[in-house]
């Protein structure tokens, strides 16, 4: 039995929506964006900005689309002259105290006030020769600055802290045009998810200190990705400028992280810009490591694997993709393999107002993917096996000094890595691979959701995606084998995912049921 729906017309387009849908959401289905500020799909609606007023035929006054449910048979006008004049009026009112800070404001280029003023506002202001309201800048806490002069009092930040973070440290202070956002002086904005207020702020009033004056929005390239911080798998955008990652932001996914990401994940991007990368493949010859072309490197990898009679210990790095892990396992198919993923642990930090959303203790985005692909041993067990192992194959795993010493003592080590590690002595080969920020791949989060990420920057030097190195080595094992030529092909050929393709995952990901027998 389907849920009841209503049918209505918005700007001439007929739509059918579930009963209870607000006009502002119904309008999206009609392809109409109702300009707004205080409304946000992940926050309760106060209808205070008055931007979203629309005309509904037969109603005496214009109504705010964010709190007015769609009614059967309604005829709604978002772009009628009256609605446009109303919006023009609100924009003019907002600009009478809002300073002309665009040249020095971080939000420029991604500012909703700029956007709607440009789209629908007046060219000039009639607010002549009065001083604008002034309040000094306030440091709200670890990463957030509040610039009250720019604040349009949409109250999204207050509602986020009250209802989503459930840590009410912000409030509206004062009254009338003297109002501003106040913070409880005994607290800082240090909630583990408080950085989201910067994204929520439609203007440049709440800004990130980390990003302050770093780059202009229009200089940024934006890439869809998945946060590599923990098993939650928040969807993100990686913003780069001239191939340097300058910012991570959440990307909406109503099934995973809604519109949010935690501050830990947000801040953890500097490693993507490391300059000390391994750029050339190295192969051990006559007691020393020599740079070689990829053909020679791959041939060495294939030969050494082939020559392995005993156990192989596979040490997978915490940010390894399904493609990388899957093709490592494929390369080692039929052999005695003990595979494990290095997973640093940390504190959890739930976002109280959203079910099933938290910074997770396991700081690895693809732990579930690793398990499904067979890398499910405990790290300590695998390390214990190293002295007896015939081959240690490393997939960009991070090592403690003790672990490094253990591995350096192993006879045969092949090191696929992003950064060289002198503690390992002389491996058989050092093969430069890309980070997740430089390749296409899939992570499977703690809920079994396979999600795709895209490359945000160019790989340094000769670095290649790990899956392509491993698959090429696999292909050398038999003449009829053909290595996949793209990450999508590499993923589609992985059995545990039953032929699922990248296209199937889209940009929202898909839950993949765990195959029987996987822990």
């Amino acid at each position: 039995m389907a849920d009841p729906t209503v049918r209505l017309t918005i700007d001439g387009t007929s739509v059918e929506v579930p009963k209870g849908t607000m006009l502002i959401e119904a309008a999206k289905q009609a392809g109409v964006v109702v300009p707004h500020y205080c409304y946000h799909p992940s926050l309760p609606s106060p209808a205070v900005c008055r931007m979203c007023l629309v005309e509904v035929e037969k109603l005496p006054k214009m109504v705010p689309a964010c709190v007015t449910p769609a009614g059967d048979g309604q005829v709604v006008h978002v772009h009628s002259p009256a609605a446009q004049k109303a919006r023009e009026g609100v924009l003019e009112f907002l600009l009478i105290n809002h300073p002309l800070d665009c040249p020095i404001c971080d939000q420029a280029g991604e500012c909703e006030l700029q956007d709607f003023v440009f789209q629908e506002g007046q060219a000039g202001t009639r607010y002549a020769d009065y001083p604008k309201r002034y309040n000094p800048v306030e440091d709200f806490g670890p990463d957030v600055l509040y610039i009250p002069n720019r604040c349009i009092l949409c109250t999204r930040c207050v509602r986020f802290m009250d209802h989503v973070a459930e840590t009410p440290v912000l409030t509206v202070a004062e009254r009338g045009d003297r109002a501003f956002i106040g913070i409880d002086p005994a607290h800082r904005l240090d909630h583990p998810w408080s950085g989201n207020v910067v994204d929520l702020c439609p203007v440049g009033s709440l800004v990130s200190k980390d990003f302050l004056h770093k780059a202009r929005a229009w200089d940024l390239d934006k890439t869809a990705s998945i946060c590599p911080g923990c098993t939650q798998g928040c969807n993100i955008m990686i913003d780069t400028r001239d191939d340097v990652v300058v910012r991570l932001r959440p990307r909406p996914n109503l099934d995973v992280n809604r519109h949010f990401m935690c501050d830990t994940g947000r801040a953890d991007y500097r490693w993507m810009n490391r300059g000390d990368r391994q750029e050339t493949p190295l192969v051990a010859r006559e007691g020393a490591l020599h740079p070689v072309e990829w053909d020679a490197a791959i041939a060495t990898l294939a030969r050494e694997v082939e020559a392995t009679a005993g156990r192989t210990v596979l040490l997978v790095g915490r940010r390894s993709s399904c493609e990388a892990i899957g093709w490592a396992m494929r390369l080692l198919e039929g052999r005695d393999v003990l595979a494990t993923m290095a997973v640093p642990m940390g504190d959890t930090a739930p976002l109280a107002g959203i079910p099933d959303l938290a910074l997770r203790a396991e700081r690895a985005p693809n732990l579930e993917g690793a398990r499904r692909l067979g890398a499910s041993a405990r790290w300590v067990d695998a390390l214990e096996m190293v002295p007896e192992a015939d081959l240690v194959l490393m997939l960009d795993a991070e090592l403690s000094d003790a672990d490094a010493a253990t591995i350096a003592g192993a006879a045969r080590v092949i090191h696929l890595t992003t950064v060289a590690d002198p503690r390992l002595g002389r491996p058989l080969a050092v093969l430069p691979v890309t980070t997740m920020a430089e390749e296409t791949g899939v992570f499977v989060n703690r809920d079994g959701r396979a999600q795709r990420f895209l490359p945000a920057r160019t790989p340094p030097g000769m670095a290649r995606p790990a899956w392509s190195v491993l698959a090429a080595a696999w292909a050398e094992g038999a003449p009829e084998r053909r290595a996949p030529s793209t990450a999508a092909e590499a993923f589609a050929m992985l059995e545990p995912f039953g032929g699922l393709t990248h296209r199937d995952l889209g940009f929202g990901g898909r839950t993949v049921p765990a195959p029987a027998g996987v822990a």
Partner: protein
Amino acid sequence: MSHQAAPVGPVFTPERRAQLEALAQRYPTRQALLLPALWMAQRAHGWVTPEAIAEIAEVLEVSTAHVQGVVSFYTMYHTHPVGRHFIQVCTTSPCHMCGAADVVAALLEHTGCGELGATSPDGRFTVVEVECLGACGFVTPLLIDDDFVESVTPAGVPELLARYP
């Protein structure tokens, strides 16, 4: 009621706490006690101190930020010390058109405050302008502390002030 001495002790002495809890029986939420609690704090100390705000937040089980938002909204709560006697004069249109401005001038002169919002050098008075006090037929009305005084004239100001040492 108003005095400049540093506040002594908590808002909720055992006696005041008992009063508060008795009042709590008349409302379904503790948050509803907020305006009455802020009045208790102001009566106790002469103004609503940051310590009082924190104390009230804890006793009422609401956030300090919420209490601050409320205190800054309602203009009758002082968030800083004021003169021993706090004078609020109405100057909205009905009073203004009947001479309220002259009463304000007389008050500023005879209190020694000099300007609105300032406390007199001897700490005795603070004079502020407020909006309609709801006594428009009795111009000029004003509040001195809790005393609502009607029909104040400029000539009557010195005698009125004399009643408040």
